[in-house]
């Protein structure tokens, strides 16, 4: 596993991506495989790519039809005598030549234009069919600037809330799950199987079903509108317990016995022997937890009702004003929201695959 990972670096990447079955020649099976994989990449990556690219489009560009692939903007020019910069158009002249002109205003199918190099020549009325806008590639970074400015600092609060929930919940999840897994994998006690089955059985209950009871408990405890109200209800996850238990089963009991003879208390065995040896599985659980916490929508939606405790996901959903959805800001924020996870995956993918492979859980 680590071998294939290291092969993806440097010039090996090309060799890795063009590997063929068996010999040197490409067989039909190779073609089908690569075709299928490319289709998969296309289907999965396209929406993400669309969001990413579109987040750099101006509002006008976003609502344009037909849509453009890359973010583009109309070329504009300052023309003497006009307050705002005017958009440039390529206008087909009567003699067939093409001239660049600036549009002052458009009424129906006619547009008033002016020659930007010679504004004194006066306005010309032109059929819009003869004019095509002059475009240039333009990354609308101002979407992001506007997002960060216009929210009045709220977005930083959202980021803080999301980050706080994600980090604290993940830490607590790791501790809770690993302690349960340790007990279930390394101790023999009456009812251990029942406990394990009960934990796994909760996998079969859809989260939406327990949403109302969860809310009632949270509200009884007085944690509505507190970040802890989102963190605490889901710190113990059945998948995490099961995954860690399966991994801990592979740690030889002799190690624990050796530690016991070395005067280690059960607590010390847990955090000095079992935890360090379970790092790959812990990494997997951490990644799953970070992912689900960061993307969590339902629980925060019902528990957190005040804007100052909103998470990023809630803020995203709230991105509409009286005129509808503010697409350019929404897209910019979606991109920002997805980035941390994307980076986490980039750097941790080696551990994730290794961890999942070694726990035998897919």
């Amino acid at each position, binding site marked *: 596993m680590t071998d294939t990972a290291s092969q993806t670096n440097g010039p090996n990447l090309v060799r890795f991506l063009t590997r063929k079955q068996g010999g040197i020649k490409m067989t039909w099976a190779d073609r089908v495989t690569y075709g299928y994989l490319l289709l998969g990449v296309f289907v999965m990556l396209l929406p993400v790519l669309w969001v990413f690219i579109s987040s750099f489009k101006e509002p006008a560009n976003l609502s344009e039809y037909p849509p453009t692939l890359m973010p583009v903007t109309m070329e504009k020019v300052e023309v003497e005598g006009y307050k705002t910069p005017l958009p440039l158009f390529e206008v087909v002249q009567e003699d067939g030549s093409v001239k660049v002109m600036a549009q002052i205003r458009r009424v129906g199918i006619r547009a008033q234009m002016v020659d930007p190099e010679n504004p004194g020549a006066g306005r010309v009325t032109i059929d819009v069919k003869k004019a095509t806008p002059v475009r240039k590639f333009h990354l609308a970074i101002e979407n992001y600037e506007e997002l960060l400015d216009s929210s009045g600092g709220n977005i930083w609060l959202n980021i803080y809330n999301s980050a706080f929930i994600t980090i604290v919940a993940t830490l607590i999840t790791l501790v809770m799950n690993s302690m349960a897994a340790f007990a279930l994998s390394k101790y023999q006690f009456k009812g251990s199987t029942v406990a394990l089955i009960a934990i796994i059985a909760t996998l079969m209950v859809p989260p939406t079903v327990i949403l109302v009871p969860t809310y009632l408990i949270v509200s009884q405890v007085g944690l509505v509108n507190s970040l802890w109200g989102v963190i605490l209800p889901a710190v113990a996850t059945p998948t995490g317990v099961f995954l860690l238990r399966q991994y801990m089963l592979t740690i*030889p009991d*002799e*190690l624990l*016995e*050796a*530690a*016991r*003879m*070395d*005067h*280690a*208390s059960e607590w*010390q065995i847990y955090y*000095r*022997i079992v935890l*360090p*040896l379970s790092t790959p599985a812990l990494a997997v659980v951490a990644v799953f937890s970070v992912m689900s916490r960061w993307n969590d929508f339902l629980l925060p939606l019902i528990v957190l009702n005040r804007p100052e405790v909103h998470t990023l996901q809630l803020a995203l959903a709230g991105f509409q004003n009286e005129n509808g959805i503010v697409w350019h800001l929404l897209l910019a924020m979606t991109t920002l929201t997805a980035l941390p996870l994307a980076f986490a995956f980039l750097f941790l993918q080696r551990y994730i695959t290794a961890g999942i492979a070694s726990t035998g859980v897919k």
Partner: protein
Amino acid sequence: MANLKLENLNKTFGTVEVIPNVNLDIEDGEFVVFVGPSGCGKSTLLRMIAGLETASSGDILIDGESVVRTPAADRGVSMVFQSYALYPHMTVRQNLSFGLENIGMDKAEIERRIQDASKLLQINELLKRRPTQLSGGQRQRVAIGRSIVREPKIFLFDEPLSNLDAELRVVMRFEISSLHERLGNTMIYVTHDQIEAMTMADKIVVLRKGVIEQVGAPLELYNKPDNKFVAGFIGSPRMNFVDGKATSVTADGFNFSAEGLGDLALPRGQRPVEDNQPVSFGIRPEDLKVVGDEGEGWDFSVSVSEQHGRDTYLHGLLADGTEILVHQPGQFAAKRGDMLKVMPDENAWHLFDSDELAIV
């Protein structure tokens, strides 16, 4: 430094009695080897002494003090595990110091003990490495080192050499023996390999199904096995057994007769044999002599001849169909299908009754 006493020790898993009732005395400084086939309960017995397995009943006394309810760490014993059980995420030094740090020992004292042990076992170059970076023999040394630094009263070894290759096993066997001589501690060593038992032990305890079959010095067990099981288990290659009857019993001698083999006249000594008593005649491969292909002796047809150079081992069948093995010193020309005559050495045979007990 301590003696160990097991009193009516019993271990039951559910309804299965793994160790029915064991009584054993081990003197201070002895090197005792528990030996037996797999599943004989020798490891369970060791783990009970270590405190990793609770005793169902009975008592374990170290230096006259009952430790049967004492936690493993406080019994003053240390154990070398079959898999070594080194902590993979710690360096050799941390592996050695882990137990000492846990009891809050002074840093300087820990360092002194680590230095002493690592010098003794020649692992001082390895202290910064992790177990995965060590060879099998080095891991073995570190595992022993971890026992030594604790300065226990009794060392316990659970099949420590079974993961090593044959050559290294011989080396480590010698090293553990010399370690015992230097430290002088009581050591209990579990193995299924009777060669390890024979070469290392002051005292061998042969176990079968949780029952002690015989306790004694290696050669005592070899020369005077109490029963057929010990006779067959101790000694390599194992003893041959021929089933037959005692006939023509007189005050001086008797005949051992088996179908197709004729009568073999043997001196009786003090043996309580009766006429027509079914007996099993035990003879070690090296005590069977090939006496040519004519004349007196048992007919023996060779099926396989193993040439070791210095020795020759002949596998084959007697006339009654019993499979036996004959050892011939030196190089001996024989091939499959050869008919030979073999004769037991008249001073080196064993006789067992139908209950497999030795008739002496």
